[in-house]
């Protein structure tokens, strides 16, 4: 299946990446090429096969005691913030 320009614009919006208008055609071509190539998987009979999300599927997921194991490091957490104030992250206005 080929990926057209409007599809690229839509997935760019879903991915929250601003893509300049002039890049859309080239990206549509590239993604079409990759999508066309991965579609060779259609040749493989996967009837009744369980999808594999991880090779660690056999391992039992662990639970730890529900206790605090980390914290008290506010300044560390904020140390790379683009903007912070009074111990908080400063983010753009969300609610009008």
């Amino acid at each position, binding site marked *: 299946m080929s990926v057209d320009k409007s599809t690229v614009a839509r997935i760019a919006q879903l991915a929250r990446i601003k893509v300049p208008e002039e890049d859309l055609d080239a990206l549509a071509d590239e993604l079409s090429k990759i999508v066309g190539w991965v579609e060779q998987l259609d040749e493989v009979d996967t009837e009744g096969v369980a999808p594999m999300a991880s*090779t660690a599927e056999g391992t039992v997921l662990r639970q730890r005691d529900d206790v605090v194991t980390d914290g008290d490091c506010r300044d560390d957490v904020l140390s790379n913030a683009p903007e912070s104030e009074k111990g908080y992250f400063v983010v753009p206005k969300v609610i009008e």
Partner: protein
Amino acid sequence: MASLTDLTLTEAQTGLASGDFSSKELTEAHITAIEGARDLNAFVIETPERAIEDAERSDKRRASGEVGGIEGLPIAIKDLFCTKGVQSTAASKMLEGFVPPYESTVTAQMVEAGMVMLGKTNLDEFAMGSSNETSYFGPVVNPWKRNSDDQPLVPGGSSGGSAAAVAARLCLAATGTDTGGSIRQPASFCGIVGMKPTYGRCSRWGIVAFASSLDQAGPMTRTVRDSALLLQSMVGFDPKDTTSADVPVPDFQAALGQDIKGLKIGIPSEYRLDGTDPEILGLWDQGIKWLEEAGAETVEVSLPRTKYALPVYYIIAPAEASSNLARYDGMRYGLRVEGDTLTDVYENTRGEGFGAEVRRRILMGTYVLSAGYYDAYYIKAQKVRKLIADEFSVAFEQVDAILTPTVPSAAFAHGEKSDDLLAMYLNDVLTVPASLAGLPGISVPAGLSSDGLPLGLQLITKAFDEETLFRVADVIEQSAKFTGRPDMKA
């Protein structure tokens, strides 16, 4: 005595133990080498002051009888590992200037074991690439050159800075990470040993995530023994990584020097792909002979779905990446580019912060995960992944290890494959299958092409059988007697 930068990791360990030189002397020699080889662009940042302090502390510890597993040994860290107080960028504009307030589990263990950290090595942006040309900090130059021309070659990727630094004698060893071949492929291109452990051996905690079901850290060294030595300090169960394997850790070096009589080595004919350099196929045949001469039995094995591994990878890895990289939103750390609304800030930040290849993969991942395509692409790929993993399981009922080439070609020139995405992706065609199955793999330098470039052979074993991997790799190394080294050494 050989120059201090020419020692193997193991020889340097012995030299330190017998007092032939101090960690400080060893470290200074490497700092000088790094300064003299900046043209390679192997490092995103050098940390010479930190290295000297590490070395001085190590010398003091040694004097008081405290000796860790990699005590006083100067090592470089791929800039995908978060290192406390030292900029960690993933070679992306998005993380330029990011200084983690914490240390990745793997590097924390290495610090605990006495490592001297020389700096952070360059890589493809967010580890997405096979040539180290997608780095925001510029491409890395392979220290090797062809006999026939003087063109700068790529070191492979994504762990290209680590591979170049180890080959050029700028560090005794380095860490890498491997998602689809990012340790093994650059190791092959630079004539060094690159090893990807079983998925779950090394904690992923504190390593910038690319594709979480595939990412694994591993050692990049000049010998197989060095690989086993460094791996020992990197592995181990970590409760902070839910996929970390709570399994016993063997003594990896103990596997070396054993004979391989009676071992069965699988040779998968499906790895004999059209377009593979005939010299590489010849080297593979040579590798088969070496193992047979050492007493192993080689057996044809069939992995018929090998050719589907790469398309599976290019669905699963971008899908996981698009999810993992959603965290870069300009709010808590990293780049922020202002805009009129919150959405504008997200879109501007991500539009400017990601390079072309990362953007392409996030878009591809978003596409295959989007409504209407999820089953057709993502679930389909996961099903084929299962079939590929099962094929390996069947093969390993029959054989102890599998021998293949690492890459279908030798190192290529800068820009040579940048315009052809699929040609670039094909670099990983022989390494991706083991990644999908979570199996350990190692690339061992086995010979030179007629144009003077190193070529590697890959070994794969069943999960958590790194001991057999090292045991057979050791025999390949002994037989190949690879002594080639790049001209452009510091």
